[in-house]
Structures are given as structure tokens and as C-alpha cells.
């Protein structure tokens, strides 16, 4: 039993986190759904699953970078809404799309700068950023409307070589994240900084000569840019700007990251775990819609799952 337990939690001292349990949960949900409803294995539903899951996968992967540092970004929901509002301002797509990324990077940079230079707690810094950005979004676009450039719409809805476009978005996200996390010095430093934070030695990485402030700022910029990417994807799906589309999205992203075995105190986690976590959330939503579960009780079920998953992970740090 203990052997199985250890296997599920990953080997002792692993920095991948507990990702096998969520994988089992995902498989169990898939199995249950395919037995329970005929529609689930239907080709159309499976094709829908990818675009449904994609915004969450992209946002969660971005969120993972700051969570690995022991941080948290609560402003990603607002960045998504803001991105759709900017895209619907009207104008050529070769101006709007770079502009969206520049603005998102600026938001991420402000988050990181405030956190590292002014010693502000990540929750407070990103929470106030969430408010400010939500206000600006509502000024730009009080209610949903406007039209998104055609290039964005066809980049989401079309298909290339017979494969639907959302698949390419997913592959692109994973390749970029994989390179950043496992194929660069930045990724290694991320684990080093987060590992120090989670053991209560905030400046452990700093003392070993790692430029922690620069890497922390970079992680927040990356998180914001992934959120902008998810925003562009969503704008392409809903074809207009919507100030409320990203509402509470940060909660779903954090839930997905937590389900995927990434420890919220930092230092432990994995890319594949995060993707599995996001897929679990998407499968659940899809399954509950197919089985006609009330949308109100769906939030309760999501919250309960989050509670169960975080309660299973033990950590040293107490409090936040």
C-alpha cells in the first residue's frame, strides 16, 4: 500500500509532484463517461473537447510558472477579458495581436516589479492588478460587442492539413512551455527559487548566485503572455470583445495547476501534470454538461475537487 502511495505521489524528493493520481482520475472520468453516455465517444463531442479545453490549458500552463516560484497570479482572468476587449477595438490584426502581447507583458512586468522591488505579497499585487485591469476593460468595452479581426477567427475556427487549428495552438503552447521549463536555464532557476521559498529559506537561490528578481519578473511576464494567448483564442471563438469572459478564470487555472500536482508553496510541479489537471477540469465540465448536471452544482463539485486535491498534498509551510 505504501509502495503504491509513494508511486502515486512520485518518488521521494521528486520535483514532478503528484501527477499520476490526476492521470488516474482523468482516465476514470473518461471511462465513466464513455459507459454512461453514448454522446461522449461521438466524434463531434471529442472534436469539441479540444477547443473547450484549450483556453484553460494555455492559462494553466502560464499560471504554473508563477506557482513554481511560490507565487500566484490572480490577474490572468482580467488579462483574458482585457485581451478580447483590445482585439475588438477594430484595426488590422498585424497591429492588434502584437499590441495585445506587449500590453500583457507590461502587466506581467508590473506584477513582477511590484512584487520583487516593493516587497508586496504576490496575492495583493496581482489582486489589485486584477481590479485595475477590470476597470480599464470596462471603460474600453462596457458590454460585450465589437468584432475581432478575421485572421484571429480563422486561426481558431479553421483547419490546416485536415487537422483543426486548436490542436496547433495546443502543440505550440506545449512546445514553448517545454522549452522554457525543461530546456533553459530559466526553468532550472525557477525550481531552485521555488524550492527555497517552499522550505522557508526565501533567499536560498539568491545566495547561490541566481538572479532571483529577474527570473521572478520573467515568470510573471510569461504567465501574462500565456493569458493573452488564451484571450486571443477565446476572442476567436466568441468573435467579439467581452469584459466578463475571463471572470473567475484565475480560479479555474489555479485549480487545474493544483490538481496537476504542482505544489502551491512552490518548487514542485510539472508541465505534464498541469496539462493533465486542465484536461481533468475540461472532461468534468464536458461530462457534467452531457449528463445534464445543473451548472450551479457544477461549481460546487469543482470546489470540492479542489479541496480534496489540496488536502491530499502535505507541505511544510503553514498559512498562505
Amino acid at each position, binding site marked *: 500500500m505504501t509502495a503504491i502511495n509513494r508511486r502515486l505521489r512520485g518518488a521521494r524528493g521528486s520535483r514532478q509532484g503528484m501527477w499520476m493520481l490526476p492521470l488516474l482520475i482523468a482516465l476514470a472520468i473518461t471511462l465513466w463517461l464513455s459507459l454512461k453516455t453514448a454522446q461522449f465517444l461521438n466524434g463531434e463531442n471529442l472534436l469539441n473537447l479540444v477547443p473547450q479545453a484549450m483556453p484553460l490549458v494555455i492559462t494553466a500552463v502560464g499560471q504554473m510558472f508563477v506557482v513554481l516560484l511560490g507565487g500566484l497570479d490572480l490577474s490572468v482572468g482580467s488579462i483574458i477579458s482585457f485581451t478580447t476587449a483590445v482585439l475588438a477595438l477594430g484595426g488590422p490584426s498585424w497591429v492588434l495581436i502584437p499590441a495585445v502581447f506587449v500590453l500583457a507583458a507590461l502587466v506581467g512586468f508590473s506584477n513582477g516589479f511590484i512584487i520583487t522591488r516593493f516587497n508586496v505579497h504576490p496575492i*495583493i499585487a496581482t489582486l489589485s492588478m*486584477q481590479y485595475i485591469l477590470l*476597470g480599464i476593460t470596462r471603460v474600453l468595452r462596457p458590454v460585450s460587442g465589437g468584432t475581432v479581426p478575421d485572421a484571429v477567427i480563422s486561426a481558431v475556427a479553421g483547419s490546416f492539413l485536415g487537422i483543426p487549428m486548436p490542436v496547433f495552438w495546443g502543440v505550440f503552447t506545449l512546445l514553448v512551455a517545454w522549452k522554457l521549463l525543461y530546456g533553459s536555464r530559466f526553468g532550472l532557476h525557477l525550481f531552485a527559487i521555488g524550492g527555497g521559498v517552499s522550505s522557508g529559506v526565501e533567499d536560498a537561490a539568491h545566495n547561490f548566485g541566481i538572479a532571483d528578481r529577474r527570473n521572478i519578473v520573467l515568470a510573471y511576464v510569461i504567465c501574462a503572455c500565456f493569458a493573452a494567448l488564451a484571450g486571443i483564442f477565446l476572442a476567436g471563438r466568441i468573435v467579439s470583445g467581452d469584459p466578463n469572459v475571463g471572470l473567475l478564470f484565475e*480560479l479555474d487555472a489555479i485549480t487545474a495547476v*493544483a490538481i496537476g500536482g504542482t505544489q502551491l508553496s512552490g518548487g514542485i510541479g510539472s508541465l505534464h501534470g498541469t496539462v493533465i489537471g486542465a484536461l481533468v477540469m475540461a472532461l468534468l465540465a464536458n461530462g457534467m454538461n452531457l449528463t445534464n448536471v445543473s451548472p*450551479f452544482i457544477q*461549481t460546487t463539485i469543482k470546489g470540492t475537487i479542489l479541496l480534496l486535491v489540496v488536502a491530499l498534498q502535505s507541505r511544510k509551510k*503553514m498559512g498562505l
Partner: protein
Amino acid sequence: MAAALAHPVMRRLLRIPPAYYVFAVLLLVLWVARPNMLNLNIMGIFVRQIVPLGILVLGQLLVMRVRSIDLSGGGVILLINYTISSGVFPGASMAFFIVLALGIGLAVGLFNGLMVGVRRVSAVIVTLAVGIVLVGIVQYLSSGKPPGDVPGMFADIYNTKLGPAPTPVIFWVAVSAALSLFLSRTVFGRYVTSVGENVQAAHFSGVPVARTVVLAHTLAGLFAGIAALVQTASIAVGSVRVGLDLPILAVAATILGGVVFGRGEGGVWGPFFGVLSFALLFVVMTTFGVDEPGKLIAQGLIILLAAIFYGIRQRSS
């Protein structure tokens, strides 16, 4: 800039929680722009509206002083509002509702406390998830439609006045004073301070860290229950949206009042003035015709500037 910050006078001024400065500035703005609004009757009405937030803040400052956070208050307020207004307990007495509300608050607070203090789960995640679960339950039970009316007794008490001041305001001041005394005079108050200063040092000095955190969260749940009763009495009808933004505002007011994760220089009265500042802020913004987006931006900026104020001070000392 560092030299100017290190000056003794500057350091003395920086020690005062920003809530007092914000309160003074807003009062001055109102005095210059709308002097006729500064009378006891009008102010009493504005302050009375903010009392639920004020009571929720008392719990928030308690958990923030032990380096935790409670974001489940919105769910607790919604659930209690629903149980009182939906008529699931027809003909129940006022005392029954009060006991029920306090019981719900205590139970949710105890659960949060056990998860955070004993199970050592991230407080943000636990309290957020508990809030989501409670909101989901209420929305499911009510199918998204507002439930019925609140028994008239609640509004009757809410609308009374003791002398010139409304009863809810007097109640808020009394509860704040009680908490202030509780924190300064009891052993538990000292435990809270030592856990906030340094968890490990507190543990090695024999402070029951886990018990202190659990108790702080349980008390925060109790305050959320009281806040729910006042909020329910103030709107006098059932609602499926009431109080959802209160936990975030409570965090903001607490930070403004000089209590930031683990540091409690602001005591109870700093956050008290933080809440009053928010009351005045809404009055000032409404009189100047600032709309909803502007209010959101102003709220965000105030939280941010207050937090930066602490960050700079910490580095200069």
C-alpha cells in the same frame, strides 16, 4: 530617497497606518467640495451601510495577523442570507436564526482552520474553494432566483437609533473594542502576535501554533456569521449575489489599516479606519460622479499603494 525615508520624522510618520491618512484626505475633500454632507445624520447612514464589511474585517485582521487569509466570507454571508430569507424554517424565532447563523459561521471557520492549521493546506485555496462550494450550494438550492423576504424583526432592529448614532454602528464599535481588548489582554492575543512575528520562533518558544491558527480562523468564521446577520438585516430581502465582493474589500481595508500578513501594528483600530475610508471613498466617488469602472480602478490602486507603502518601509528599516 532612502536617506529621506531614514529620517526620524519620516520614519515616525511611516509608522502610522495609511488608513488614517486616506481617511483625513477624503474627509478634507468632502469638506471642501460638499460641506453640507458632513453632518451626523447623513454620515450615520453612510457608515451604517458599511457595518457588515466592518465586522468581516475584524475576522480578516485576525487571520491575516497569523499569516493566513480568509476569502470564504462571501459564501458564508450568502448561505446565511439564504437560510433566513428562503423560508426553509417557517415561523422560526429571531433567536433561532441568530444561533443558526453563528453556528454556520463557526462550523465553516473551524473547517478552514483545521485545513490551514492542521492539514497545512494553502489558506488562499482552501477558503476560496469553501467560498465557491457555499455559493454553488446556494445557487443550486435557489436555482439562481432570489429567495423571499427576511423576517421584519431584523429590519426593525437595524433601523433603530441609540441617541444620534444608528444601532448597527454602535454595535460595530462595541465589537471592535471587545476584540481590541481581547487581543491586548489575553494570552491568545500574545500568541497571535508571536505567530505573526515568526512561526518557527513561536513554535520553539512553546506557542501552540496550530491551535492559534485554528482558533483565529474559527473566530473569523464567527465574525462572518455576525456580518451575515447585519447584512441580511440591512437589505431586508433574500439575494443570490449579496456580499460576494466583501471578502476582497475586507482584505483591502485590513491592509489599508496597517495589518499585513504577520504584521499587526495597525491593531484593531487601523483596519477600523480602513473600513471608514472605504465608506468615505464611495461617498466621494459617488458625489463626483465616478462610475463603476472608475471605482474598480480606484480600489485596485488604493490596495496597491497601501501595500507598496509597507514594502518601502520594510526595506528602509
